[in-house]
């Protein structure tokens, strides 16, 4: 077994925490800045902002042709898929405009997938998604505190889950994935993934007898096997949905993928660092 060796006890607590904390702060400021300037931490998709999204299956038409068909409508973006299809997004428009747009779409691309969300409905969804995120997070934190009944390790788990979500959300915005119902669900799913590896680490290190560095090393082997396996599954889901232009799954898997890498860092640097500081390493 060629396992990456990662001897956590080689590093000081400060070295372990520096990168994840810095990234957390930068991401937090970035999201804060976005919220301040645009009202949303991450650029919202039509689910939350209202608008029309059209998935056009593979076609011989060039991007200019596609844009030409929709020139009279509030076009927001046109993305080209690897398979020659397009993903077109429009800003919110009145019902009559949507009706005529529907005709244009069905005339040129009868097989397209069209979704339209009204502005008010988008607002409702936005508020509900926010509540869902809040409830999920509080619920998770409660479970963690009840299970560990120990302040520092619990905070470490909760903080790294929080950091997973914040950094991933910032990365999402940078690579241009919009916040939709699907990507919100993916962010919530990250809570589950994040806690998975954190709990493994905390349990192994705190509830076992033995040398600290060995317990850490053992936990890392299992944790890394876990996360790398999940990454491989999610990566293929991403590739297939990207090529096959299944945008719902593509966005969900892209967010999960980013989140899993962020989680590797947060679990094995942030959480492991806090635990090292807390449990005192090997009493060197």
């Amino acid at each position: 077994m060629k396992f990456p060796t990662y001897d956590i006890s080689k590093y000081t607590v400060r070295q372990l925490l520096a990168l994840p904390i810095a990234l957390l702060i930068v991401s937090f400021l970035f999201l804060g800045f976005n919220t301040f300037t645009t009202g949303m931490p991450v650029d919202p998709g039509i689910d939350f902002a209202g608008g029309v999204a059209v998935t056009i299956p593979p076609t011989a038409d060039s991007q200019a042709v596609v844009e030409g068909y929709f020139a009279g409508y509030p076009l927001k973006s046109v993305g080209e898929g690897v398979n020659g299809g397009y993903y077109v997004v429009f800003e919110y428009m009145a019902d009559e405009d949507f009706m005529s747009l529907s005709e244009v779409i069905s005339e040129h691309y009868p097989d397209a997938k069209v979704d339209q969300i009204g502005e008010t409905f988008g607002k409702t969804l936005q508020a509900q998604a926010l509540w869902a995120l809040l409830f999920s997070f509080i619920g998770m934190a409660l479970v963690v505190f009840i299970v560990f009944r120990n302040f520092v390790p619990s905070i470490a788990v909760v903080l790294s889950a929080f950091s997973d979500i914040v950094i991933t959300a910032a990365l999402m915005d940078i690579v241009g994935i919009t916040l939709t119902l699907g990507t919100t669900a993916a962010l919530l799913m990250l809570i589950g993934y994040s806690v998975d590896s954190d709990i493994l680490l905390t349990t192994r290190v705190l509830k076992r007898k033995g040398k600290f560095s060995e317990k850490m090393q053992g936990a890392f082997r299992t944790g890394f096997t876990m996360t790398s396996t999940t990454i491989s599954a999610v990566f293929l889901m991403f590739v297939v949905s990207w090529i096959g232009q299944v945008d719902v799954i593509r966005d969900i898997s892209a967010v999960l993928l980013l989140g899993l890498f962020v989680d590797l860092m947060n679990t094995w640097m942030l959480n492991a660092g806090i635990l090292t500081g807390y449990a005192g390493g090997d009493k060197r």
Partner: protein
Amino acid sequence: MSDDTEGGFVKTLKDWRVAVMLILVVFSLVSIYVIPPGISNGMTGNLQLGLDLEGGSWIQLSFQSEVVRFETDENPEVFAARIGDALDAEVFLFEEDRLEIRAPFTREELELVFVENGGSLVTYENGVSKDTADQIKLILENKVNNLGTKDARINTITGLNGVTQYIRLELAGVDITTAQEIVGAQGKFEIRIQTIGNESEHVLYGDSIKSVSTPTQSPPGSDVWGVGFSLTEGGADAFQDAANTYGATSNPDAHEIMMLLDDEIVYSASLNPQLAAELKTIPVRELRATTGAGEEGLEDAQKLEIHLRAGALPVDVEIAGSGTVSATLGEHFKVMSVIAGILALMAVAVTVYYWYREPAIVLPMIGTTIAEIIILLGIATYIQQLDLASIAGLIAVLGTGIDQLVVITDEVIHEGRVPSQNLYLKRFNRALGIIMVAACTTVIAMLPLAVMDLANLRGFAIITILGVLIGVIITRPAYGKVIMAILSKKPGDH
């Protein structure tokens, strides 16, 4: 240790955890393909597929109406009636202190009117009462059935406070234009009058009906139900004219008044003597169709109300959101989902093999994961339709499932050796402890999405929760048993 290697396989199969898993796999396969026979549907069998996999359209409607809670010292019914007059809108008092106002008003507008009439507004929300929502659902269902759509789902989306904000229609195999027509289309309502024998003459059409009230008792408290409706001026003239011309005013019993919806008789009765007398001299605009006494009378009255509205909804609706997927694209998504699932599973197998280099571990792991997916799909045939979001959930849950099998494996085989039975059980339980906590948090994290009605995210959440539960309760304990049996058979390990 004392593990009996001969017959170990049979023994493992007989272990209840493994047995339960296998029985559930069989049960699931039967649910998907055999009962009811689903092979003809191809690969997907009896799985309920969402619109984005099957092709079809959805429309989510919001209501141009409000539900308010109010306070007043007066009799609520009297107060409500006055509010209705003041707003010139239809109102419906569905609880002692809650009023449904069937026209769009802002909170400020209503507050003013309530205060002017000696009351006050306590809460204000957009939407309709549960009763009205059910009625709208019924009307839409009737329309959809009339069009012979094969597969339609209509759901009201109601908050915890009992106010329904949205109603969602999902129509498989229907394009968006047709779906919009279904929502907007109205039936043809007509009133005719009996002339001689079975013959009848036209009196008026539905456009002469100005408004229709909800079922009421007349006189109040008598338990005799009916529906009041008012005619336009022209309608009232036509009605009076017909009643006099064909003799319904002088001999009501021989000349019944009939109501027809799309040329079918939905109500027929004779004029009551008092009305007959009145019609001899003046046109009457406020009419009432009595349906009878008791529960049956009420039900008939409710149906008649719907007929009188001729498929028009009691509240104006607006399209909050809509979408459509063609059958071709749905088919493409279906194929892509299956490919994504299979490739994800293969990726997992390769990665796990890369780390463990031990078929005796990898095969049971992948086997368990497949069993988990089959059971999940089998149970899903009964409770949840699969759409793209729930397929993403399925693959995500496959990821956590493998995570946890890795935890069990690493915990049990410490330093490449299989422990004794006692130590094994101890370690296995320890691993289950970690898994339980992880599962618990995932379920809690997904719970809000499963409870709230955030469109298609509910499927994602339900599939994830279901998958985690199946894993923790059924497949992971079984895996622990299997891996123990297989590894203890390997020579030279203990």
